[in-house]
């Protein structure tokens, strides 16, 4: 059966800060452009999770009067604290001068990135952009010359055996003169495009982390609106690196989270349990005790930065924001850089459309001349230094590099091993036993997933596909005790043992769309593909 086709000038995949900034910028440059944004979440913001402390730099360029327009950046960051947790009870505060200045947050705002995206979508719609939540982009469409000509939206109403149900609705072809991919970290189409057009040629591999976050209502007496706490150390040990955050945001809430680099080697590591344990440290518990957890979620982060950044333009489209990897890890911030990459993409596309070019060739030049390039270039050594030299010497290197040399130390450090390849076998690793959650500060996975409001239509094909069905049994279980059980923050992967032996059960309904499994599986055997549109978490305020 022939598919229906819709045509647009520009098509944008993903209604996050990058995609929406790009849509708004395009409309500012030419109000007559016909622009469509598709978003897999049930509404804009439903799948967005971030700390977040946001630098309003790009926003101020996009909408100079953003404050009068009511952008939901309501809580200025007032005070920075950097804490190193030495063990489960003690800690030391790092004085401001000893911390890399990229960690200072004056002029930034504590906010919910989900709410910010909702606001940005309203602005886009007012400018005339068509925003369609609950629609997934399932495949890239190419024309006969190999140029990207659009995407195919996912079919709706398919049952678990791939048969159409009564509610079946066939996916449509969306065609556009340019397609912008802004799916966020490890987008499944972005991954395909990077391979298709060799965009990562001569680049370091992308590096990732998993971020877990909770939102708490805390005792108003303990709340200090605007306080920003960052830190690292306990409970992470050995070559497991990462850092935590605790932001005192508005309405007596705090956002607390842990980011763990996905290049850890011990297969027994469970990022979820590390996070639960972390909250018992007095540095965090002093605020959380007596409070109530209201939300939970997790998302992978692309943190390779400048050295891992692929070429972002290709025939017919662009890859922007975290889909490419524009996050500045030295500042643990990606919103302003993602937005800026989207705005540059918009300008390059506008130029290409006006000059009837097939490719947004001016993107690279515009990118190189922007502050985005300067910012990413000057922080290129931050991640590799920590990986190479460890927390202490790497941290000192970063302070020196960022504070004295402004990121201009004339050498570039590289980190060339892919994250999944670092995983060691259980026989080479120390077994880790995590303490049981106490139900007050720490919780189990299932009650956590419940707070993410995650829902998928039950009767549909599993959206976590194994390239080879036998890998769990032949490799992952015997050699790694199936690490997916532990790195998945939502309990999607379970090893079940019965009369017939062990098998891997995939509970796709729990999936938070964080993409960690697609990244960390040692055999790269798990492919994350989008489920039926509208499925996934429904983050309220994350």
């Amino acid at each position, binding site marked *: 059966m022939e598919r229906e086709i819709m045509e647009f000038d520009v098509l944008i995949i993903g209604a996050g800060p990058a995609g929406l900034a790009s849509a708004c910028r395009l409309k500012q440059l030419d109000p007559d452009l016909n622009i469509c944004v598709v978003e897999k979440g049930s509404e804009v913001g*439903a799948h967005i999770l971030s700390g977040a402390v946001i630098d309003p730099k790009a926003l101020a360029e996009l909408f100079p009067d953003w404050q009068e327009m009511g952008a939901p950046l309501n809580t200025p960051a007032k005070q920075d604290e950097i804490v190193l947790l030495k063990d489960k009870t003690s800690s030391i505060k790092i004085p401001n001068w000893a911390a890399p200045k990229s960690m200072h947050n004056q002029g930034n705002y504590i906010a919910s990135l989900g709410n910010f995206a*909702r606001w940005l979508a309203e602005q886009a719609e007012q400018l005339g952009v068509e925003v369609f939540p609950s629609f997934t982009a399932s495949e890239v469409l190419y024309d006969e010359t190999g140029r990207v000509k659009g995407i195919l939206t996912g079919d709706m*109403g398919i049952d678990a055996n791939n048969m159409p149900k009564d*509610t079946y*609705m066939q996916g449509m072809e969306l065609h556009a003169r340019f397609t912008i991919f802004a799916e966020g970290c490890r987008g499944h189409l972005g991954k395909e495009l990077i391979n298709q057009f060799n965009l990562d040629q001569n680049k370091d591999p992308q590096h990732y982390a998993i971020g877990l976050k909770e939102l708490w209502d805390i005792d108003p007496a303990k709340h200090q609106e605007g306080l920003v706490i960052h830190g690292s150390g306990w409970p992470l040990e050995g070559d497991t690196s990462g850092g935590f955050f605790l932001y005192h945001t508005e309405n007596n809430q705090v956002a607390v989270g842990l980011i763990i680099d996905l290049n850890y080697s011990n297969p027994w590591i469970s990022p979820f349990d590390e996070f639960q344990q972390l909250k018992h440290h007095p540095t965090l518990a002093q605020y959380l005790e007596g409070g109530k957890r209201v939300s939970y979620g997790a998302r992978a982060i692309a943190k390779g930065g400048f050295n891992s950044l692929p070429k972002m333009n290709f025939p017919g489209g662009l890859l922007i924001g975290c889909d490419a990897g524009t996050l500045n890890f030295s500042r643990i911030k990606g919103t302003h850089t993602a937005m800026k990459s989207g705005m540059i993409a918009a300008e390059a596309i506008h130029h290409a459309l006006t000059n009837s070019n097939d490719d947004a060739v001016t993107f690279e030049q515009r990118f190189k001349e922007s502050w985005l390039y300067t910012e990413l270039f000057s922080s290129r050594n931050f991640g590799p230094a920590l990986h190479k030299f460890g927390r202490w010497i790497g941290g000192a290197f970063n302070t020196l590099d960022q504070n004295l040399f402004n990121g201009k130390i004339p050498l570039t450090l590289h980190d060339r091993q892919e994250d999944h390849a670092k995983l060691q076998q259980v026989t080479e690793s120390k077994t880790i036993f995590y303490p049981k959650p106490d139900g007050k500060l720490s919780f189990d996975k299932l009650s956590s997933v419940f707070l993410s*409001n995650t829902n998928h239509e039950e009767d549909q094909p599993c959206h976590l596909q194994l390239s080879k069905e036998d890998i769990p049994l032949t490799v992952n279980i015997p050699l790694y005790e199936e690490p997916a059980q532990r790195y998945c923050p939502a309990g999607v992967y379970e090893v079940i043992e019965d009369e017939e032996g062990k098998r891997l059960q995939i509970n796709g309904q729990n999936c938070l769309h964080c993409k960690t499994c697609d990244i960390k599986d040692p055999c790269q055997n798990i492919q994350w593909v989008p489920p039926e549109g509208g499925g996934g978490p429904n983050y309220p*305020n994350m």
Partner: protein
Amino acid sequence: MKILVAVKRVIDYNAKVRVKADNTDVDLNNTKMAINPFCEIAVEEAIRLKEAGSASEVIVVSIGPKACQEQIRTALALGADRGIQVETADYPESLNVAKLLAQVVRDEQPGLIIMGKQAIDSDNNQTGQMLSALLDMPQGTFASEVKLEGDKAQVTREVDGGLQTLSLNLPAIITTDLRLNEPRFASLPNIMKAKRKPLAVTSPETLGVELKQHSTLLKVTPPTERSAGILVNSVDELVEKLKNEAKVL
């Protein structure tokens, strides 16, 4: 024949309901809202009747603040023809809703009114019945099947212990149960078209309805949390605990 469908904007059924810290109400800040599932079934049924040639126009009405236009647009994207929003500052209680709907019915003169049996936020299950009394029209509640034949509607109702089939003279009021149908997905072109379909905004004053307060919300409290269970090693231990700790045996 016109069909009038009433829809309500409610908290999305996937969203976790949170109670405000001061127990005054449910916290709807930044919570995902959606069309009430029973109302969506009502919209689907009306569209199917129109597709089957039994109706000429499907009108969707919603009562509430401006935000409820989103739910009207959802219904228009599914296939309804036009919308009416009765703008109120808040979501009025059932009797006020029934009075407002009654006036819309008098103005529009539909041959059939379909609505959800209840809204999943307040779970009152009374507006349809009240509307029927106010308009002195026959009602078929908890419908699991609807057939139109001439000037009659045959409604199969899910009642305790089985199914009851009624024949109603039109115009009539039908409230939907879960098994009446499974609503379709809105397609992209239809969502775009829905943005251009007519949506009229009116008010209780224009309709000549005075809203009266009949009840006051005193307090909302979340259900008490279930304490964690424990694993017992034997049946004897279970029996012992049920007897001496839980004291249920």
